[in-house]
Every structure is written in structure tokens, then in C-alpha cells.
């Protein structure tokens, strides 16, 4: 008997890619050799090599920062805002033109389903550049008074979960505000950043305005601690975020840290239940759960717990795990063996600490890194799986009786990035949203992103915001006092 779960594979072709066998560092507008120990980027779904990647050592970082400094002082900061905006508009259009290629490359290198790379990541990348392009000649409205200044050279280090999207979140506001950039993609997902470098060449962006240097953690460390860097923007783990806060203390660098999370997704008994189930699934199983704002702690009102868990299991049993390039795939590959080990470890700890484990029954491909969607019930607030960020397709289910208890449990974490609330009672949603200590709160939805919407955390989820006017202001400082005076006196003569 066939069911709708039996389907013909519909793989997206990789013929659209024109990959090089090896990639250098993108410094001062061209690809150059790196002088660190190069490495290979593989596809996590097959473990097959995609390309050889250069690694930047200390001298390479110096070169990249010097190129960015030159470009800032001589070119980019002297360009009109309108012209900076035009370059960003060009980039947005080029991303749209090459959208399919970028989506395939992202899926290949990261392991995420092509459906998500194609429908979420890449469209948002274009949207981010389009949004900030329009800001470039409107900086007086960023909230820092007239004639705000760029900071200078921005050092940006991004994670592997949304490689190209995180690049866009970082580069678009930095350039709109008049800064130049040295950015380091994650070690396991450098591919789309290097294709993006080709896009910058097509856009004829002035040399040195964006420099892309690949490498491991040490390269990132060299970059953020470089003395000629004015701004550091980092997305990644809380442990590394703390190390950056320590090492940059006293330096005067402006810092944005977007770190880990352990978001509560709170479901009240009057929630629109079908939407809530879809939202819970999207909240934790989107992108294999490799999402800092993932709804990894489900807080469900006690009287509907059993019903919600049954519905979740039924829904998860319909998800298709497998080839990320297959357009039918819902759950792709775990990004790396290292991450897979971490997910396995924490899940094993969840079991040994007494929680009940349920895993969707799906076939696991022979090669590559995979982890089937998993739910833990009977979880208590002290369990590691209720406290530690798993960063994988693992949902911990806890219960509550009253809104006050839901709030107390939701806030019982050092993190504070995001939260979800599901209820048909609008005033209750707003009251709960008021009391949640989290930077992004989704009510009757989850994992929504938009370039106009500020994103970032409370507490140990970091500081600073990305997106919207707030994300632009993070790359600006007030006009110099003399300039402010000049503006005032000019205004007075009008």
C-alpha cells in the first residue's frame, strides 16, 4: 500500500554550480593565497569533498584589515550615501539573479534542505541588502542625530547554521553605514561566502570594502583582536562571545554579540492547536534545530500536554529526512560530525537523567551526519536538556499550570534570545510577552525573520541588535562635536 510518504525523489541539480576546485582569501578585491594551513569543505550529507579552502594566518589578517582600512579612509567613507546604497542595491539584485545557484551551494555545503535554502535563506539575503541599501543615504534618521559617522573597520565572525544569511546580516548594515568589512565565515561553511565574493566583483564594489577571510577559530580570534579594528560583530556560541567580551575589554571597540539561546515556546490550553503544532515543529526542527533562537523548550499547559505530545509525534512521523538537495526533504543533515557528537551526547544525558525519549522512525542514510527528530517528555527544569543549548533537532517538553509558572520557567535560564507564546487570548499574550526576558517574542508564530525587525538577546544571549534601525545604529556613532556644531550653525542660517 502506498501512502503520501512514498514519493519519487526530486533532487535539485548541482549543474548550476560553477565551483572551483580551490578557493583563496578574498582580500582587496581579489582572491589571493592564504598562508595558514588550508582545509577542505565537505558536504555533511555525503562527507564528500566540495573544495579546498585557504586559511588566513596572522599576516593575512593584517593584510585584510589594512585593505579594509585603506578602503574606508580613501574610498568608502568619501562616497555619498546614495552611491553606497547603489552598490548595495546592485548586490541585492545580483543575489536575486544567482539565487538558485546560491541556494544549491548552501544546501550542499551546510546540509540544510534545499526547500529552506531556496525559500528562506537566499530570499532573506536579498531582502537584507535591499533593506539596508535604502538606509545608506538616510543615516540622519538612524537615531544618532544628524551626520552620524561610520565606525571604521568592522571585524565580523559568523556561524555555520545560516552561512550566507548571517553574512548578509553583518555586511549590509555595516556598508550602508559607511564602514568597511573583514568577515570570517565558519570553517565548515565557507562556500557561499566565496561565491558572494564573485558577486562583489560583478557588482564592481571598490576593492577592500569587503574582505572575506576563511579559516578556523584562530583566524577569527586574530581578526576580532586586531588593534586596527573598530567594531566587532559576532554570531556564535556564548562561550566564544564571552571570550570576545574579555579580550576586547578596554579596547573601546563597539561590540555586537548574538549568542546562544534556550527559547521557551509556551502553549496555553486555548491555543489554536493546529497552528501551534506546526509552529512547534517549525520552531525546533527548522534547519535541523541549528538555530540560536530555536524553540527548544516546549512549555505546554498541563491539561493539554498529552494531546499536544501525541499530535507532535504524529506530525513528526510525516517529516522526510534525507538528501538535502531533494525538494521533498524536510530534515537535512547535521552540519558536522562534531555537532552530531554533541547532539548525541546531550540526548544520551537526557535519557540518563530520567527523561523519556521518543525518536521519529525514519531511515537514516548510510553516509553523512544525521539525527532523527527527537522529543523528550518528563523533563524537569534542572535537566541538562532543559538548560543547555543542544543546537539540534531535539525538543524538551515541560509543563506548567498558570501563566505565572510559565513565565517563571521560561525565564529560568541564563539565555534570553527568543520565546514563543500560543494562545487565543490577546491580552494574556501581551501580559506574558511583557514579562518574558527575551529579545524576540513570537506570538502565534515562530522563527519569523525580517530585515526591518531588530533581532538579538537579553542576558547571556548577547547584546546589540541586528536588523531594522537598531541594527543600523550599531554601526554608527554620533557626529563629532565640531561637526555637530557646524550642522547647527548651518541650520540656524537657513
Amino acid at each position, binding site marked *: 500500500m502506498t501512502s503520501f510518504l512514498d514519493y519519487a525523489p526530486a533532487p535539485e541539480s548541482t549543474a548550476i554550480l560553477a565551483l572551483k576546485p580551490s578557493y583563496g582569501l578574498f582580500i582587496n578585491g581579489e582572491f589571493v593565497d592564504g598562508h595558514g594551513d588550508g582545509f577542505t569543505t565537505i558536504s555533511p550529507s555525503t562527507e564528500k569533498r566540495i573544495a579546498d579552502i585557504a586559511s588566513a594566518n596572522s599576516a593575512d589578517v593584517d593584510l585584510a584589515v589594512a585593505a579594509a582600512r585603506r578602503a574606508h579612509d580613501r574610498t568608502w567613507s568619501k562616497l555619498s550615501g546614495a552611491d553606497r546604497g547603489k552598490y548595495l542595491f546592485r548586490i541585492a539584485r545580483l543575489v536575486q539573479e544567482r539565487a538558485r545557484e546560491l541556494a544549491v551551494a548552501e544546501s550542499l555545503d551546510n546540509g540544510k534542505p534545499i526547500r529552506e535554502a531556496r525559500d528562506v535563506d537566499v530570499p532573506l539575503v536579498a531582502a537584507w541588502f535591499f533593506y539596508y541599501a535604502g538606509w545608506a543615504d538616510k543615516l540622519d534618521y538612524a*537615531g544618532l542625530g544628524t551626520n552620524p559617522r561610520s565606525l571604521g573597520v568592522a571585524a565580523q565572525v559568523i556561524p555555520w547554521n545560516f552561512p550566507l544569511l548571517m553574512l548578509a546580516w553583518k555586511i549590509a548594515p555595516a556598508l550602508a553605514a559607511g564602514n568597511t568589512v573583514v568577515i570570517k565565515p565558519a570553517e565548515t561553511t565557507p562556500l557561499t561566502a566565496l561565491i558572494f565574493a564573485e558577486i562583489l566583483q560583478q557588482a564592481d564594489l571598490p576593492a577592500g570594502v569587503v574582505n572575506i577571510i576563511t579559516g578556523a577559530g584562530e583566524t577569527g580570534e586574530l581578526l576580532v583582536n586586531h588593534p586596527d579594528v573598530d567594531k566587532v560583530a559576532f554570531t556564535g556560541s556564548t562561550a566564544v562571545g564571552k571570550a570576545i567580551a574579555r579580550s576586547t575589554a578596554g579596547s573601546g571597540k563597539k561590540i555586537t554579540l548574538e549568542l546562544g539561546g534556550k527559547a521557551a515556546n509556551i502553549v496555553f490550553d486555548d491555543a489554536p492547536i493546529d497552528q501551534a503544532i506546526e509552529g512547534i515543529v517549525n520552531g525546533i526542527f527548522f534547519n535541523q534545530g541549528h538555530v540560536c533562537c530555536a524553540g527548544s523548550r516546549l512549555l505546554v499547559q498541563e491539561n493539554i500536554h498529552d494531546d499536544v505530545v501525541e499530535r507532535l509525534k504524529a506530525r513528526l512521523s510525516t517529516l522526510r529526512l534525507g538528501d538535502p538537495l531533494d525538494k521533498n526533504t524536510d530534515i537535512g543533515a547535521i552540519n558536522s560530525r562534531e555537532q552530531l557528537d554533541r547532539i548525541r551526547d546531550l540526548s544520551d544525558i537526557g535519557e540518563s537523567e530520567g527523561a523519556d525519549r521518543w525518536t521519529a522512525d525514519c531511515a537514516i542514510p548510510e553516509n553523512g551526519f544525521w539525527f532523527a527528530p527527537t522529543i523528550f517528555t518528563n523533563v524537569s527544569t534542572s535537566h541538562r536538556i532543559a538548560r543547555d543549548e543542544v543546537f539540534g533537532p531535539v525538543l524538551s517538553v515541560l509543563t506548567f499550570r498558570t501563566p505565572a509558572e510559565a513565565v517563571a520557567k521560561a525565564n529560568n535560564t541564563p539565555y534570553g534570545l527568543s520565546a514563543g507564546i500560543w494562545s487565543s487570548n490577546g491580552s494574556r499574550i501581551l501580559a506574558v510577552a511583557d514579562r518574558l526576558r527575551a529579545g524576540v517574542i513570537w506570538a502565534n508564530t515562530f522563527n519569523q525573520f525580517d530585515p526591518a*525587525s531588530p533581532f538579538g538577546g537579553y542576558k547571556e544571549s548577547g547584546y546589540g541588535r541586528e536588523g531594522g534601525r537598531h541594527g543600523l545604529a550599531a554601526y554608527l556613532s554620533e557626529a563629532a562635536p565640531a561637526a555637530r556644531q557646524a550642522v547647527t550653525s548651518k541650520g540656524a542660517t537657513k
Partner: protein
Amino acid sequence: MTHLTIPKTYKLYVGGKFPRSESGRVYEVTTAKGAFLANAAKASRKDARDAVVAARAAQSGWAGATGYNRGQVLYRVAEVLEGRRAQFIDEIVASEGVSTAAATAQVNEAIDTWVWYAGWADKYVQVAGNGNGVSGPYFNLSTPEPTGVVAIIAPRESSLLGLASVIGPAVATGNTVVVIASERAPLSAISLAEVLATSDVPGGVVNVLTGSAAEIAPWLASHADVNGLDLAGAGDLGSDSAGTGSAGTGSASTGSASTGESTWVDLQIAAAETLKRVLPPVSGIPSRSIDRMLAFTETKTVWHTKAMI
């Protein structure tokens, strides 16, 4: 007939009460020329931790008060300060060695600073918040909220104005604070605490410690229940000029932390462990600014679906 004066006992201000330091320690406060003025309490690590507990207990209530209410309370502080201006002028003249005119100017400026921040309490949300026009059927609003508990090292100069310039911006938005007063001129801080205690400021919203910043600040910088750190007056901590001769001896807290030698950078490094929001030192008195308020706020963005009708 002469009246023999009754000197005041200067104590700490924690949780709305005026306790002595649990350590039993005091230190001598002198005029600019070195004459004895008072024995101020020399707060210990335990006092600092008690102050954080008090600030945390008061935080949700203060943040939950309406901006209008916080604004009125802060304006009330200015009213009561105005009525006690003579006392503050005398204290400033005595301990800072400035002219009466300079002390008067400082008191005026301090009062006006309270009024300025009072006015912001119900407006900063509008100025720093945004409705966000996202591409989809969503209501989407960003609003700033107070960060939580903020530890402050007050400016060493202009004791009363310095306090207004750092406490005002933090509490206007709904934070609660633990402030370490100027070590050399702490008397204005305790007299200000008396004003706060009689101005409808709930106990625990502002907690005042006197003593050695070099000794106490490291415990606040590393305290996991402190969310923000304002290093306004910490610029010369650990440098040669910071010692007052009375610091560091007989310390009750000679634990593992290296107290006494910490510079402000060490404090920022300690703050990194719990990712506190940190404002760096300023030279002189921080000017009034919305940035100083927003440094200890968090932007919360709420999305809500809109029905298809």
C-alpha cells in the same frame, strides 16, 4: 546660648534601610584640607551582595511601575533636594573644598538633572522603540525595557551631581542600582539616600555603598545577578592616584579576588563572564544623554500574527 551640634552618623543605604557595614568598619572622611568630618561606613563584599539582593528584589516592581509613575517619583526627588539645598551646599563646601558659589551651582545642576531624567521616564520608549514594517501579515513592535540590576561606580568629583548623572539615567527606565559613592567625598551620597528614602522611591531601587571602590567593585563586576556595570568613576582605579591611604588595610574580604589593584579594564573583563552591559569610564561628570539611559535597556521585539479577513 550656644548649641552643641549633633554630628550625623553616616551609614549605608540598602533596601530602603540605613545599616552599618556588616564588617563594622568605618573610614575617616576629611575636608579637602584634611580636617575630620565624619566616619563613613566602609562597605564589605557582604554589604555589596546584600545590596544586590535588595536591588533584585525591587527590580520587577520598579520596572513594572508606569513610566508616568517613575517620572513623578524622580521629580519628587528633585523637589525634596530643593528643600534641602542648604545642607548639600554645606556638605559639598566642606568635603570638596569648593566655594559656596561652586557648590550652589553643583546642587542646581544636580536638581535639574533629576528633573531632566524624570521627564524621560514615560518618553524613552517612544523615542527608542519602533513599529517595524515587516513583509508579512504581522504586527511587529520593538520596545526598550530596563536591563535589570546595574552596579555603578560614581564619579569621584562633584559628588552630588555625579550621583544624579549616573543614577538618574539608570533608574528612569526601570533599572535598580547599587552605587558605590565617591570614596573621598561620600557624604552627599548618604544625604541623597535620605532624600530618596523620603521621596517615594521604593526601598531597594537605589542602594548606596560607601567605602573603597577598588575593594567592592570587583565583587559587583563578577556578580551573576548584576546585569549592567557603569564604570563612570572607575577611570583611575588601580592607578597611583586612586589610593587614599585608608583603602586595603584590615580588609574583611581578602579572598581569591585581587582587590585593591583592579583597574577598570579588569572590572570589564570580570563583567564579560556573565556578559554584563558595560559603560566605560568618563572623565569628569557624564553629560545628560539618552544614550546613557539606553545603555542599560534591552530592545524587545514582539511579533503577532494578523488574521486573514
